[in-house]
């Protein structure tokens, strides 16, 4: 299973754990498994079925650009990070 390093903002979902194990051959499956274990991950990471534009995924030190289709290895190390330009969701607009 891949190791997912949990950003500080999302550690409430994992009971404070900064890294957890999750399974999946791509980012979509990985997030689905995270959401099964720790409900709320999909809402935080996905928008219209893909990774939110404001979030970047680093897999084994490479910044993935395939969104939910990005392959994840059996022993991969996965980080969810802000996308390069920063930004935020818009609650009102």
């Amino acid at each position, binding site marked *: 299973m891949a190791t997912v390093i949990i950003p500080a*903002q999302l550690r409430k979902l994992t009971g404070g754990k900064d890294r957890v194990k999750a399974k999946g051959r791509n980012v979509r499956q990985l997030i689905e498994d995270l959401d099964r274990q720790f409900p709320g991950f999909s809402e935080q990471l996905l928008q219209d079925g893909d990774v939110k534009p404001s979030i970047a995924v680093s897999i084994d030190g490479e910044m*993935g650009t395939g969104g939910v289709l990005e392959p994840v290895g059996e022993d991969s190390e996965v980080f969810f990070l802000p996308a390069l330009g*920063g930004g*935020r969701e*818009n609650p009102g607009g």
Partner: protein
Amino acid sequence: MAHLNGSSDGNFRVIGTRPIRHDGVEKVTGQALYGADYSMPGMLYGKVLRSPHAHAKIKSIRIDKALKHPGVHAVITGADFPEVKGVMAQVGELVVNTHYLSLNVMARDKVLYDGHPVAAVAATSKHIAEEALELIEVDYELLPPVMTAEEAMKPDAPILLPELRSRFIAHRTDPGSPEGPDRPTNVAAHIQFQRGDLEAGFKSADFIVEREYRTATVHQGYIEPQNALAIYNPDGHITIYCSTQGSFNVRTLTASILGLSEGMIRVVPAEIGGGFGGKTTVYLEPLAVLLSKKSGRPVKLTMTRSEVLRATGPTSGTKIRVKLGATRQGKITAAEVWMAYEAGAFPGSPFAPGAMTTLGPYHIENLKIDSFDVVVNRPKVAAYRAPGSPASAFACETALDEVAEKCGIDPLELRLRNASHEGTPQPAGPPFKKIGYIETVEAIKNSDHYRSELIGKNRGRGVASGFWFNGGLQSSATVNVHTDGTISVVTGSVDIGGTRAAMAMIAAEVLGLNVTDVRPIVTDTDAIGHTDVTGGSRIALATGLAVYDAAHDALRQLKQRAAKLWEKQPEEVQFKNGVFTASGENAAPLTLKELASRLARTGGPVTGRATVNAGAVGAVGNAFATVCVDVEVDPETGKVQILRATIAQDAGRAIHPSYVEGQMQGGLAQGLGWALSEEYVYDERGVLRNTSLLDYRMPTCLDLPPIETIVVEVPNPSHPLGVRGVGEVSIVPPMAAVANAIYRAVGVRMRELPMSPPRLLKELMRKQGTSVEQQAAAAD
């Protein structure tokens, strides 16, 4: 140049040489067309009415008098814009909220900064358009402005955007607890990175340095103001000529703001007179399109310098607190950084990249970084060379200098003792791949500059380092082989820093041609595949990769043609030094020129094509730079003179060393301006007071010494040519290097930018226990 870990010497025929740029003659003879040079039959001239207030409600706008003014063909206001649903969209290196982008292009019910557009006019001359602006009546209800992050974060601060709610921010910080306080806020977002045990880290320190810093809003200072010419055809097709770093960005953003299909818009990028990140978004383009649609005529708008400074995106002012714990041996045991970035009127400052790069050059096990995106009544910020990193580096690299002093060790040695290397976790977590940070420090340490003695009163030497990720993103390229054996290389990457030459050199290298046999072309959005912005230091790397692949695609086809001529299999054909060969009879060697003349009889023209997503193929290599600066301080006036400046930067592999050096010198020069003289000056009403380059003081050649460069080459193992981006990291270290040099010159630690004469003089007086007023009285 310093060649390290895999010298390219001898391995390349063209790469690493310094040919004359292909677009040089056009530019020095004035033939090159910039945006303002374009003109169309029947063209109208547009002008924008801008808010004179920093914060106000728009109660009403009356345009009837302006519409009746002779020569006026169209007037637009916020009412002419469609409602844009707020979605976050990845546009090149930016993530933008299209709703806020639309509000920034044209105000609706509220103005949020001095210069915010409220209406625009198209008329038969600029003067008539200006007259018409004076006939537009806007009734404002003034609101109190909030100009700094500190003010804006106070609980009772005036609110810019009522939809920003603290509950939402709390939810982001603590998503398991949606029931947070629900009140309006100016804090648009918060990000945190944390690792290790901060408390234990500080406990194990021998001493702690804790300081507070402030940096000013500064502008990119590109010499060419924004401009746009739009032609709205009756069939709904639109053509836009403009000065931009990203023609595809302009297409996407304009379509989004106006509710159009991207396919209806063609964007032709003009030559560009600088951008530095500031031309990665849109200001005039949607206005020009709407005015053209309303008037039925082509419409051109060109900003004045005052409009550029008041209403295009500068970079954030910041407030930063740094706490470092260290041992007496110079090991940093813990670091805590708190940062607030002013976004301007709408969310979207570089608060995240600022957090992700700060202290990047160092391996610190116990670390906590908090960064906030804060709206204020200033123009919405735009990207500026390594966005977010220079401000945080100013703070942290200055605090590090104090650590070195307390340890009694050389500041470069302190950096080496804590230096990041391959495998070190970045501040955001992922480990660095192969990087050349240590090599840049050693290059400065061994430089003639650092080893020379600095003699003289009130003189000092400072050093600092910087880190920037670099971008990857998408690029497309086409290589057309002509019948005379020359080629054209077509890309969609606007050439800011000499990238035409770099693209030509890469193609020439692959195809065994002279660089003069290659014509590099930058084309429009209808003529090439999607290409992201010229930004993120990504063109030599990513578009270069597309050109490299497209040239190899052409080469593969050429081998097939040679095989056909020789009645052999393509895999039997060899290519070396520009000559195709095969063993056996009936296979006389062919140069590319000879083969090119026979393409018609072997299947027709040869065109190589390639598209890449450089991030997807992991080609991006991180960049580091280290800077050394000597200064002399005039204790009577507080003026700082830069005596000598040297920068060492890891370029991975320099395709055209002169343009790499140019990027290094340019970034350092801008950083020196940021350090010493540049700042937005607002009055108490929030009105910008320095709206010309006489008052917004950028450095000139008289202010700067020749800047010495040391190009370090630690090849990027993920790129076939070893390239790393080179355009941005050079601006990261200079401010701290100057602050550290000033300290060594006169014993004053400067913690606010710019370190202008009044500010430095005040600190000098404080050190002497006097005030400026007392000194003036004594002089009398």
